[in-house]
């Protein structure tokens, strides 16, 4: 559903130097303002991290919509 907004499902993100999870989130919302209405979590290398954690590059970053298992 997030891919529906961005219009693509994979994207290369160039970090200008080191970046925290929170900074990445801000950049995403800047580029895709429609994402502000959506809830999503950020997984870095398949782990949900706190906003203050730095992202080591290269990293696999995923924007995860609300979970619906069950």
């Amino acid at each position, binding site marked *: 559903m997030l891919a529906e907004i961005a219009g693509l499902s994979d994207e290369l993100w160039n970090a200008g130097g080191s970046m925290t999870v929170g900074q990445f989130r801000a950049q995403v919302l800047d580029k895709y303002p429609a994402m502000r209405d959506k*809830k999503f979590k950020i997984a870095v290398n398949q782990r949900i991290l706190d906003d203050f954690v730095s992202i080591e590059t290269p990293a696999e970053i*995923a924007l*995860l*919509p609300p*979970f*619906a298992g*069950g």
Partner: protein
Amino acid sequence: MEKVHKPKKVFVQGPISPDFVAKSIASHQSKTGIGAHAIFLGQIRADQKEGGVVTGIDYTAYEEMAEQAFHDIREAAFARFELTCMHIYHSLGLVPTGEISLFVFVSSPHRRAAFEASEYIVEEIKAKVPIFGKELTGDSGHVWKENT
């Protein structure tokens, strides 16, 4: 607990059948230390949404992360409760209304551990496993499901 629990395949394609549940139960009758089984089954409801009545859910997952999350939940449950066995199955792909998409099966010598583990595992799955569900309504509509 020193025992190593081998990784198990959780995802199955499409709905989980009652016969599969029966076979799982039957395969535990030789484990005579078990006194209590607790089983949880998630079934797809025909909820009324804006686009119409839900006819099914199409499940996808961020699979590699999901498998890891299931593994972590298994290990935590074995550490926390006195369990003899634990099995978790979740559907991917389309599961029509009325059919089963989640099967959590725990076995223990005594009922308390079985009850508690069953509830713990289901809550953990709902909160921590990156599974996504498109609720299909009518001919072409869909709504993304969100756990609460």
